[in-house]
């Protein structure tokens, strides 16, 4: 049950019922009616998701991960490893790839599948060396004059003893500064969880896009509830107050677009979602590529200086 979405359970039960009916009696007016009911129920649930339900979807174990998308969207992805300082962080992957026949740099946070993989990927919570690898690849992209595409999917930077010792704060700060200083176009796509500064480190881009059921937040709803309400049972409430859904962020003019997902989430059709991402990416990239360097710089300046402007 652990990897099921609670609010989806009624639908799963109905589906199972329909499946059994069809198995026993074949398709009938009853099954057609039930299917119609299912569709209705589906809409009812997914068109009225609470922010907390969106959080659960964004974090869902079965949701496609960065490398799933990378393998569909890009060609010849060649992973480049290491920060040349301390280590190679599997929570942060990156490398060269082709997008529409042209070279790009891809940098992404990578969640795992299953316990072992998740431990290996540290649940996509990067250490400082992850951010320093990202910086190294950003500099390489700048040198090669190729655009950077980042896929954001992290609960946040890893809060550990060693990560503090090696300068997690410095690593994130420098990533943000570096990304904002690049002369090349940058696009960030939040595909799942955009967790705080650990996400912003690779999301400080010219264009920020979000999948429909992705979230982006200054703090996790759990953390927020624990601090402000001093009680984690207010997590659901906090999720609402934080305004962390794609729709919220679009309204707040933080992001530049929402990428569609199937009604019940990206995991119902990863290929389709990859194509949606690809289309958005293509559109935004063409836009940015055609800008003169000065204009790119000016637009980035306006974008960031206007955030929360009084």
């Amino acid at each position, binding site marked *: 049950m652990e990897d099921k979405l609670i609010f989806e359970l009624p639908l799963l039960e109905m589906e199972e019922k329909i499946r059994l009916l069809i198995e026993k009696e074949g398709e009938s007016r009853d099954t057609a009616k039930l299917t119609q009911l299912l569709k209705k129920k589906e809409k009812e649930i997914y068109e009225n998701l609470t922010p907390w339900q969106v959080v659960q979807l964004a974090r869902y174990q079965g949701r496609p991960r960065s490398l799933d998308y990378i393998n569909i969207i890009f060609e010849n992805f060649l992973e480049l490893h290491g920060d040349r300082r301390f280590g190679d962080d599997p929570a942060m992957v990156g490398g060269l790839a082709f997008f529409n026949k042209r070279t790009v740099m891809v940098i992404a946070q990578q969640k795992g599948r299953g316990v072992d993989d998740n431990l290996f990927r540290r649940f996509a919570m990067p250490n400082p060396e992850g951010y320093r690898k990202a910086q190294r690849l950003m500099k390489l992209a700048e040198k090669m004059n190729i655009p950077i595409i980042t896929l954001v999917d992290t609960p946040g*930077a*890893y*809060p*550990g*003893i060693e*990560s*503090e*010792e*090696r*300068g*997690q*704060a*410095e690593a*994130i*700060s*420098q990533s*943000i*500064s570096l990304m*904002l*200083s690049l002369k090349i176009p940058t696009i960030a796509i939040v595909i799942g969880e955009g967790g*705080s*500064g650990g996400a*912003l*480190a690779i999301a*400080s881009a010219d264009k920020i896009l979000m999948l429909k059921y992705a979230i*982006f*937040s*200054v*703090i996790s709803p759990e*953390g*927020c509830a624990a*601090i*402000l*309400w001093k009680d984690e049972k*207010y997590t659901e409430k*906090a999720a609402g*107050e*934080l*305004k*962390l859904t794609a729709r*919220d*962020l679009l309204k*707040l003019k*933080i992001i530049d677009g929402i990428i569609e997902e199937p009604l019940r989430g990206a995991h119902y059709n990863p290929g389709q979602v990859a194509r949606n991402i690809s289309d958005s990416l293509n559109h935004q990239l063409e836009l940015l590529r055609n800008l003169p360097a000065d204009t790119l710089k000016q637009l*980035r*300046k306006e974008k*960031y*200086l206007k*955030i*929360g*402007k*009084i």
Partner: protein
Amino acid sequence: MNLLNRLNWLRKPKVKTGITDYTSTVPDNIWIKCESCQTLIYNNDLIENLKVCPHCNHHHRLTAREQISQICDPGTFYEEDASLSSRDTLGFKDTQSYVVKLKEAKKKTGLSEAVITGIGQIGSYRVGMAVMDFNFLGGSMGSVMGEKLVRIIYKAIKEELPLIIICASGGARMQEGILSLFQMAKINYALNEFSSKSLLFISVLTNPTTGGVTASFAYAADIVLAEEGALIGFAGPRVIEQTTKLKLPEGFQRANFLLDKGMVDRVVNRKSLKSTLISILEFNYGR
């Protein structure tokens, strides 16, 4: 301790037991108990010692105004954007609404936001300055802090002044959600422009400086100073303990620990902060 003070204290045994709520209205002749070693100190002595405990060297928290008066040459600080004040863009409400919390913070601190910005003189050198105040909602960074910082950064660019930011913050202001998170990018963007003009930026990390503030402007500085004993880090110690289930090492995330880990340029006792800053400013103008 002279006899008069001692007597005075004997007569008024129910003094405040901490100085977190210290305001300038506390009479000079009141005794204050040190937060760290619990020794009673004559308030005037503590003030004269820059609120550093003469017994255990504990650096008691300063308000932004106190910080400014310790650092700037007397009467030289000219505040900018003093009237800018946070709004509740998201309509955020936890146990209380953000609007009410803001109102209370203003009342408690006499400030309109958790940071004071302006131009001041330090050892006769003009400097762009921002000083955070932890007493205002934990020094948290929201849109107005971002905006005030960006404005003073661009003012410093325009006047070709060096920049000093004195940090004290628990991180981003949750009540402004994603807007507060993106202040990190906004401020670092402005600091990139500042840096590209070859102007010098010094950050001073006081107790505590954590979260989004460390992961943005605090570590975007050319020279990073840490006040003795200050807690400095990205994640808070409790979060780390909960996540890792490990016992934190002795002195973890304290100024000297960070010095040892190569994360700050110098650890500075509050009593030598001004002279250290002057020394760096001399280097800045001696190039």
